Each structure stands twice: as structure tokens, then as C-alpha cells.
């Protein structure tokens, strides 16, 4: 059986298959990682700063984009944020990074990130207030599910997903279990991450 390919919008055709199920790229953010490194670049004596800051550190979801994908970067960012919101990684009222910060971290143009934020704002998922940043909105997404256009688009995407799974050589049973696992992962109850990140 062929391994499951990543289902993120950013996956290019022919990309290296990921190990295991991956609904959204940022969902892997909570995995603990062993310490790695190629030795010290320069010795910093008594460097306890990382240990101190780790006491106050919060784990945040990670957004990933691929430059070599056929999907536009704006759509990749918007999809990643939608996944994070849908999965509860960022809850209603949570502030999002500024356009400038996200663009700097991803090494992209600010206008690309700003367009993605505007797309989500138009969908009612986030709200931007000048000078205060962008926050996740609540409730609106549920109301949109009853809109015929939204429902038709979701059905279209489901068909595309099923078609791609079949073209990739996946069996019906595998595809079904993959989708069910994704749904279970999305709807499972999640503990609140950190009270300091809420307003």
C-alpha cells in the first residue's frame, strides 16, 4: 500500500510522502523534539537565558508554506490559518501575529500575508482593527455553513479530495479511514493552551 500523501493545500504534486496522517502542516507543532545541534558556534558562558525563557514559553501552532507548490502562497497561508482555527489551535479572541511579523518569519512579501488576512476577514473568520492587530472571530463560521454557495464549495472540495485520493492509488477503505481520522482529530476536545495569550 502506498503511504498517505499530505493533505495540505501546499502539497506539490510529487512531493515526498509524509509519514502518517497530516491534516494540516501546523498540527505537528506539539510533538516533542530531541535536542540537536552541531556544537557551539561560540561559547557563551553561563548561558541560562534559554532555560529561563522556557519557563514562560508558550507552544504555538506552526504555519507552513511551500514555495514550490502550485497553490498560491496567499491561499496556502489562508488555508493554514483556517486549519488552525477549525482545529481550535487558535481560539476565538486569540490574537494572530502581525502581517509584518508573519511575513518576516516566512520570508515573504507583506502584501502576500495581508491578502491572506483580508481573505479570512472577508470570510468572517478574523477581525482586523487598525493599531490593535488581527484576532480570531467567533460564531460566524457556523452561520456560513447554511449558505448554499459555501456548502457547494465544500462539496466540490470533498469531491476533489476523493478524486485525488483515488488517483494517488488509495483504496476506498483507506480513504474513508483517513477522512474519519481527520474528522476525529478535528473534533476532539482540546485543553486551553495558555491563558496569557487571550485578551
Amino acid at each position: 500500500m502506498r503511504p498517505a500523501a499530505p493533505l495540505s493545500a501546499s502539497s506539490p504534486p510529487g512531493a515526498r510522502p509524509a509519514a502518517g496522517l497530516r491534516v494540516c502542516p501546523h498540527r505537528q507543532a506539539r510533538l516533542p523534539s530531541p535536542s540537536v545541534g552541531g556544537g557551539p558556534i561560540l561559547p557563551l558562558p553561563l548561558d541560562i537565558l534559554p532555560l529561563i525563557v522556557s519557563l514562560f514559553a508558550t507552544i504555538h501552532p506552526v504555519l507552513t508554506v511551500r514555495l514550490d507548490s502550485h497553490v498560491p502562497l496567499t491561499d496556502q497561508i489562508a488555508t493554514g490559518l483556517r486549519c488552525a482555527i477549525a482545529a481550535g489551535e487558535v481560539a476565538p479572541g486569540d490574537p494572530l501575529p502581525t502581517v509584518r511579523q508573519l511575513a518576516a518569519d516566512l520570508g515573504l512579501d507583506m502584501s502576500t500575508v495581508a491578502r491572506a488576512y483580508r481573505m479570512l476577514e472577508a470570510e468572517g473568520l478574523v477581525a482586523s482593527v487598525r493599531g490593535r492587530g488581527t484576532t480570531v472571530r467567533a460564531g460566524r463560521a457556523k452561520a456560513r455553513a447554511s449558505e448554499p454557495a459555501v456548502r457547494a464549495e465544500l462539496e466540490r472540495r470533498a469531491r476533489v479530495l476523493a478524486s485525488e485520493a483515488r488517483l494517488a492509488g488509495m483504496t476506498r477503505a483507506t480513504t474513508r479511514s483517513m477522512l474519519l481520522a481527520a474528522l476525529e482529530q478535528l473534533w476532539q476536545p482540546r485543553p486551553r493552551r495558555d491563558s496569557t495569550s487571550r485578551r
Partner: protein
Amino acid sequence: MIWFQRLFPVFMVLWPAAFSVFVEPHRDADARAPVLARRLWLATLAALLVHAGVQAWIEAALPPQHWLRSGWPTAYAVSASMILWFGFGVPALVARDPGWRAPRAAPERSAALAPRHLHHPVPRAAWVAGWIVFALCAGASLWAVLAGAHAAILLGLAWWVFMAGFGARRTVLEAEPLDREGTPELARQYAALRAFKAWCFYALGLAGTVCFSAVALLTVAHPPLAGWAGAALGTTLGLFGAVFGTLASVRRARANRLLHERTREA
């Protein structure tokens, strides 16, 4: 004080090349590393010769009272060290160890959805305390200017505080690219770098404010001492800034190297 004026630029000019000696070659070192290292040393030598020539001319042409007050050593030290560091030092270091540069060529890029602008490492109370110190120092400097000190000192004070404050605020918006897994250790390295830079900018701003005001007050209270104090305090601030900048670069390089390792593993 003459040795301050003479040694400060030499120290600043030599710093990038001397620093590069302590960076160990990485296994992924570029083949051009020796060439770039030679270029750095040649540029350092040229910078030292230029400084020696101009300084000798200034000392020969101007009486000591004048050249002691000239801004040449400070201006030259700052500009030459910047050119040497960013123009020659960083390329040489990157060639020796690619960890000094973030892997921007990678097709996959990741970022944490963390609103860093809301969580500045310097707490609000420290900012309030800093602004109170600034207000007191600005008041003292204003009094000194009205009593006869040069008005440029107020401009210098305002510029210094603006630059330090701007730098401290901007640290939270600097690029912090992650790997796909969002390695916690990498996030910790970035957080440590952020805290270090923010606090150093804060300390630099606060110390500079006090130094500017002290020199302004000395100009009125004890003019002969003002020049000496200005040179000593300015040199100390410059050295502190150089050390802080270098240590911040080391921290950044560490994070970059970890990102390289993680990206390669993925």
C-alpha cells in the same frame, strides 16, 4: 584621555576580524572561506592604515584641545566597524559556517502563529521606569543647555533614546523562521535572543540617557572634566554596544544552525 581617542577606533576596527578567529570552521564550510577570510584581514589592515593616516594628520595639524574634541575617532570607529562587519565579516563567517545565515533558500518555510507584538520581553513597569529616568535626565540636560551647555546635546539625547527604544520595540518583529515541526528548542533559542536583545537595547538606552545628561551637567559644573567624561562614557557605551551586538549575532547564528540541522533532517 588621549589613549581612549587612539585605542577606541583600533579596537572597533579589529573587532570583526578578531571575532572571526574564534568561529570554528563547520563541516559544511564554503570553499571560498579562506579567500573571504583573507579579504576581511586585508580590509581591516586598510581601515587601520586609513585611520592611522588621518589621525596622524589631525594630531599634526590641530592643537590637542581641538582634536580631542573632534568627533573623528568615534565617527570612524562606528562606520568602519559597521562596514567591516557587514561587508567583510559576515560573508567570511557565513562561508566558514553556514549556520550564520538562515536557510532562506529552502522551499518550505514555517512560522509560529505567536503574537509576539503583544508579549514584549521588557515588562511595562520597566518601560515606565525608563521613561521616568528619561524625563528626569532630559530636564537636567535642558537646564544645562539653558545654563550654557551646547544645545546639540539635547538632540543627541533624543536621537539616542529614539534609536534604543526603536531597537527594543523592533526585536519582537525580527524574523524567526521555524522548521516544519516547530522544534521547541529552536523556539527557545529565538525567545532567548529576543529577550537578550530587548534588554540590551533597553539598558543601552537607559545608560546612554544618563551619560548624555551627566556630560551636559559636567559641561556647566566642571567644563575641563566634561570632555574626558564624554570620551570615557562614549567609549564604554560603544564597547558595550559592540559586545552586545556580537553576542546577539552569536545567538542568532546558533538558532540559524539549529534551523539548518532541522531543515536538513526533514
